[in-house]
């Protein structure tokens, strides 16, 4: 018998037929019919019309049929809440069935029905099931508490389910313990400060006992929970480690990774001179290597985690280089990750092998992989000084292959090698110059120009080479233009006699013919420097640059620590803190490694959370803040010659944000890998190196530019739409409600006019909101103190807060309201302008803005037109500021004003905007970027409304 036949019925009158079959007396026929219904449901057909008929089948002692009906209920109860109530009785009855399987089934299904009315009925049966004699029922009930909490957290607390759940941790059955732990952990995540998972040595002991007995999944829950515990001292820490290590031999990779997480965390507390510490380190390597023989998807997860582990404790895998060699048939995502780890493990001992491998990879097919391999060779050179020469010659070999992208990539990394070992490998410049013509990527061109400028005195025809680039100056990307400008100035300072003409040409190109403010600024600075004090110019431009050091992409230590606490989870896969990709309050907690057990050895491996750890971070490599500043305005400040370490103030801000971070600010931390690590690297840099003096004026100039925008305008009142009729008297049995929303002094208010158009007096007013997208809820009761006489009107202001339950509405800003009086309850819905949710502290730091703008993918960008708006850009920004849309920067290009704006919603979502205003054109273009693109439409409506009022 196969089920596929159920998919094929597409006749007319199908629903009607099914109805008849469902009501048939024969069990078999009924069962068949329900299966057909479910098949239709699976393919997306609407069979909700059959709800009552299916529910009728529920009262059966046939387990199979019952399961089918429950399946249907889970799907449709939400769209048919009133009818779902009909099923409640059966549920309650089933919860008392003598068969434990049916009891469990009922309680499990009930929890999946997300209808408020049903949850109320669920409480009693759930309470019983939590204390059921059968472990299968108890373990199901434990999960059900988590489900219920997700629907109605308050209810769960009020009913005392959390305490019962805590009791289950001491249950005799291991699976019940595991599910209770899983449920509690999930609930605890949404209550960051509660003491829900009250872990103490006794409970830990119970968990460790259950660990030996429960299913593989249960072991994962328990290990993940253990990882949140902080042992009191090193002895306790060791004893837990001893009991967790056997899990490293489990066949399930997730168990292994979770065990690794616990060990990595608790290891922090062990004194480094302890024998056990060494043993533990040795025990960790084999299981990690074994993970690499799992299926590719798991290998990927494992590799992302190993990447973190080797950054934190390189000693664990230092002898295991070979296992990370790439196999020809590995999927590309595995290859790229392996490559990353190879570089991290590269050392003098194994460099020869690594280089031979990398050279092999550089001839593979996948372009990304080849590029990364070439780049890796350069990184090896920078990391292992002894190998630098060999790396350079390998790179030269690769350049000889003339494969275009290989050559370009090689040149980019050779530039970095020059910056690490100045005046050592200049002999290769001639070879590089031969390939000048084949370079078509900006990064490679910029790198080549930098090399020519830096070593101008040794290249005879440097002026000719640079001149050749100058011909197409305006077609080049900004990165190349800036680099070319600097290189020619360098050349001039080195060989002033022959190149005067050239330098004047480039300065005029940069200052007079360019629209790019950064290029212009830099041009003017050089010009002024050269014309006022050439000696100073020489000191500034040809100053000795700080050496770059090894790893460009180490994860910033605080972030790394946090990620180590998240081993095995998505955070460790993305290398981002959970707050960067989890919405709402969950995951906002920042996890930290415990401090080490004050042994003298701690200097050797400092607790990186402390200040000492941070200052220990390796010094910065070039592309730190250039990336951040650059992208938005599409100008790139990366060129090595100009970028010094970032000004200390900026880094201070970054660190502060790191710690204070709330859900919304995650943009900063959530920067893509490159971004955030670069930031981290930038932070570690010595605050003021000599070369920084050069970059200062550039960014200073930028600052001025930004300040222009920042200082615009005085705040005006927030926009509030006129009142509209929400509840007509016809529908409200004589009560008419009209109203509007406003934000006054940071408080959201609902302003209503209640009019009594009936013949009798109205009293006992009360109001309630349905769950809505932003958790709007009345902050107090509806204040209507005197009875409302016939034909009387009253103005009421209801303050609102945004801590109510959340449910996504369509449209997003829809609010369903119930108003009660002595006559009846009335329901209506209204739409609030989303601008009233814009909070006062929605002005983003410029740096953060730039980083965030860059970080949000273009898919999340939405563009809108605002028509018929006759305002100047200043007036626009003034007006918007009144509604908490803040202008961060302003820029004028071709008579078009670009306003960069940020705003923050009450739930922490940031919306970034670029508003283009052209003088004389009443149509504005607004471009919105937001991590939650759903809100864009609403935000645009607010823009439109605010600007037109």
């Amino acid at each position, binding site marked *: 018998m*196969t089920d*596929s036949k*159920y998919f094929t019925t597409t006749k007319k009158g199908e629903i009607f037929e099914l109805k008849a079959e469902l009501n048939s007396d024969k069990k078999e026929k009924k069962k068949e019919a329900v299966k057909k219904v479910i098949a239709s449901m*699976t393919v997306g057909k609407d069979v909700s019309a059959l709800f009552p008929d299916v529910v009728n089948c529920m009262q059966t002692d*046939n387990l*199979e049929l019952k*399961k089918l009906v429950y399946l249907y209920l889970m799907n449709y109860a939400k769209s048919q809440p009133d009818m779902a109530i009909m099923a409640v009785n059966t549920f309650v009855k089933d919860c008392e069935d*003598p*068969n*434990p*399987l049916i009891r469990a089934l009922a309680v*499990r299904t009930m929890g*999946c029905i997300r209808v408020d009315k049903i949850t109320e009925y669920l409480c009693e049966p759930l309470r019983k099931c939590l204390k059921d004699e*059968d472990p*299968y029922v108890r373990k*199901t009930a434990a999960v*059900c508490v988590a*489900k219920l909490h997700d629907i109605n957290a308050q209810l769960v607390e009020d009913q005392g389910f959390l305490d019962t759940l805590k009791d289950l941790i001491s249950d005799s059955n291991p*699976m019940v313990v595991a*599910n209770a732990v899983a449920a509690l952990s999930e609930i605890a995540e949404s209550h960051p400060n509660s003491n829900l998972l009250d872990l103490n040595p006794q409970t830990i002991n119970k968990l460790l006992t259950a660990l030996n*007995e429960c*299913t593989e*999944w249960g072991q994962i829950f328990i290990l993940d929970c253990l990882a949140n515990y902080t042992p009191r001292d090193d002895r306790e820490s060791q004893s837990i480690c001893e*009991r967790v290590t*056997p*899990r490293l*031999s*489990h*066949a*399930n*990779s*997730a168990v292994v990774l979770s065990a690794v997480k616990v060990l990595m965390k608790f290891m922090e507390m062990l004194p480094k001179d302890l024998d056990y510490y060494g043993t533990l380190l040795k025990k960790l390597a*084999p*299981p990690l290597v074994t993970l690499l*023989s799992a*299926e590719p*998807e*798991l290998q*990927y*997860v494992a590799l992302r985690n190993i990447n973190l582990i080797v950054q934190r404790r390189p000693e664990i895998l230092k002898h295991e280089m070979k296992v990370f*060699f790439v*196999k*020809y048939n590995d999927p*590309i*995502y595995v290859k790229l990750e392996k490559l990353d780890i190879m570089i991290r493990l590269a050392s003098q001992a194994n460099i020869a092998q690594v280089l031979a491998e990398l050279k092999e990879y550089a*001839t593979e*097919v996948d372009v990304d992989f080849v590029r990364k391999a070439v780049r890796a060779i350069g990184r090896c050179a920078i990391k292992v000084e002894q190998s630098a020469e060999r790396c350079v010659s390998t790179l030269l070999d690769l350049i000889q292959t003339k494969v*275009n992208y290989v050559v370009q990539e090689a040149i980019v990394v050779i530039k970095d090698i020059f910056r690490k070992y100045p005046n050592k490998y200049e002999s290769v410049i001639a070879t590089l110059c031969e390939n000048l013509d084949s370079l078509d990527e900006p990064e490679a061109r910029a790198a080549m120009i930098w090399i020519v400028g830096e070593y101008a005195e040794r290249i005879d025809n440097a002026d000719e080479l640079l001149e050749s680039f100058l011909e197409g100056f305006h077609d080049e990307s900004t990165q190349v233009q800036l680099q070319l400008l600097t290189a020619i100035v360098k050349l001039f300072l080195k060989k002033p006699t022959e190149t005067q003409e050239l330098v004047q040409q480039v300065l005029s190109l940069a200052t007079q013919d360019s629209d790019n403010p950064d290029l212009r600024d830099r041009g003017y600075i050089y010009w002024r420097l050269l014309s006022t004090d050439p000696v100073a110019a020489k000191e500034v431009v040809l100053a000795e640059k700080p050496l770059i050091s090894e790893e460009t992409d180490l994860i910033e230590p605080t972030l790394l620590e946090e990620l180590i606490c998240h081993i*095995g*989870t*998505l*955070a*460790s*896969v*993305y290398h981002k803190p959970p707050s960067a*990709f*989890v919405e709402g309050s*969950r*995951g906002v907690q920042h996890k930290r490694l415990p401090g080490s057990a004050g042994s003298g050895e701690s200097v050797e491996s400092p607790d990186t959370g402390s200040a000492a750890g941070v200052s220990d971070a390796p010094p910065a490599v070039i592309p730190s803040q250039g990336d951040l500043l650059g992208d938005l305005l599409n100008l790139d400040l990366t060129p090595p010659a100009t970028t010094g370490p970032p000004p200390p103030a900026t880094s201070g801000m970054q660190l502060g944000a790191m710690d204070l971070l709330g859900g919304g600010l995650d943009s900063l931390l959530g920067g893509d890998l490159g971004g955030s690590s670069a930031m981290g690297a930038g932070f570690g840099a010595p605050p003021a190196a000599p070369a920084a003096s050069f970059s200062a004026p550039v960014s200073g100039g930028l600052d001025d530019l930004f300040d222009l925008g920042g200082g615009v305008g005085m705040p005006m009142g927030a926009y509030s739409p006129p009142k509209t009729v929400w509840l007509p008297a016809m529908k409200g049995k004589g009560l008419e409600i009209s109203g509007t929303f406003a934000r006054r002094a940071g408080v959201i208010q609902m302003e209503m006019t209640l009019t009594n158009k009936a013949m009798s007096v109205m009293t006992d007013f009360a109001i309630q909101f349905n769950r809505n997208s932003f958790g709007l809820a009345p902050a107090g009761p509806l204040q209507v103190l005197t009875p409302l006489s016939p034909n009387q009107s009253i103005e009421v202001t209801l303050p609102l807060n945004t801590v109510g339950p959340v449910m996504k509405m369509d449209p997003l800003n829809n609010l369903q309201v119930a108003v009660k009086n002595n006559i009846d309850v009335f329901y209506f819905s209204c739409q609030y302008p989303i601008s009233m949710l814009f909070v006062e502290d929605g002005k983003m730091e410029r740096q953060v803005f730039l980083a965030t703008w860059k970080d949000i993918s273009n898919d999340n960008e939405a563009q809108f037109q605002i028509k018929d708006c006759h305002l100047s850009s200043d007036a626009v920004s003034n007006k918007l500021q009144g509604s908490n849309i803040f202008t961060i920067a302003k820029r004028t290009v071709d008579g078009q004003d670009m306003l960069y704006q940020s705003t923050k919603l009450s739930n922490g979502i940031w919306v970034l905007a670029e508003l283009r205003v052209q003088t004389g054109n009443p149509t504005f273009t607004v471009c919105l970027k937001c*991590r939650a693109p759903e809100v864009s439409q609403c935000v645009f409506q607010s823009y439109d409304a605010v600007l037109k009022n």
Partner: protein
Amino acid sequence: MRRLNTQRFLRNAVDAFRVNVIHARQQVRSPVTNIARTSFFHVKRSNIWLAAVTKQNVNAAMVFEFLYKMCDVMTAYFGKISEENIKNNFVLIYELLDEILDFGYPQNSETGALKTFITQQGIKGQHQTKEEQSQITSQVTGQIGWRREGIKYRRNELFLDVLESVNLLMSPQGQVLSAHVSGRVVMKSYLSGMPECKFGMNDKIVIDKQGKGGASDDAGKSGKQSIAIDDCTFHQCVRLSKFDSERSISFIPPDGEYELMRYRTTKDIILPFRVIPLVREVGRTKLEVKVVIKSNFKPSLLAQKIEVRIPTPLNTSGVQVICMKGKAKYKASENAIVWKIKRMAGMKESQISAEIELLPTNDKKKWARPPISMNFEVPFAPSGLKVRYLKVFESKLNYSDHDVIKWVRYIGRSGIYETRC
């Protein structure tokens, strides 16, 4: 055809996944995708995508393990995972999912236990007595979730298969770049009751310990080779804490076939074959390839299903091959010469030579020269692993270790066995 694991997500999530991952033009760049703050995990079995969806920071390793496990369970129930089979069994799949996953928490996923109470295809619930029901539930949630009580066989029998795959990456000069054996011990047990088993192999650590113990009897035996196991993992039935403390492998086995352990060794591996390549580029339009394979094991043993795959450039226009043994063919669609030999004894040698004609191209990119790969099967364990004993104790039923019929078999297969050329 897709199937989502959590009801909390709507169809638009499915659509997002379809558009962004399944129909994305490029190759899959990551098995985890984040679309609009929703993370998608996927694995692919033939043309079926299994996806899991979350908005939270879940345990990613667990999600993948679960997806694999789900494949295993489905395979155990209805064979190959194909569109047709999924359509044929959708009700069953719903029921299975309902049972093995609750609110995103994986529950008991052992097929043995599931079979006791899944109603589709199997036991009908209503005929069970109360005792039976509570037995099921205690078994599903209990310590030994993988075995049910009351199993009876007339003949107590067990089969042990030591399956190894030997992996090699060798440089053109014959230098071993990396080699390891990943092995599995697969057991088929047909034993009555709740037997307690103990498994022993020539693990170096164990043998050395016994040698030190001074028992003269054992000392004589330990003259036999022992092997160094880098790492091993066990089926959940094995008592891990006991292994950690005493390095003894004891367990109550599931009924039927399952994988007892996996292990990995890297030292003293017997490489069954050596491949010696010689590639010469004659001008721009011709390649000469000569490959010699040498078998390196006891002459009395026979290797089977030998296949050597020699990659050819994309612009190959014609190939002439001569081989001493077996059959060789140029397969244009696979860009390779495939050389097959049915059987080959140990300590033998064979050779193939080929002339490859190339079309002239102006493609600057050099041919990447993929490695020569090899497949084979040999009747011994390349790691040197030997099963020393598998003892069975069942105190309640009256059969002893001697009454159990035991079979042991060793099979060594090629994993990724590559020689660069």
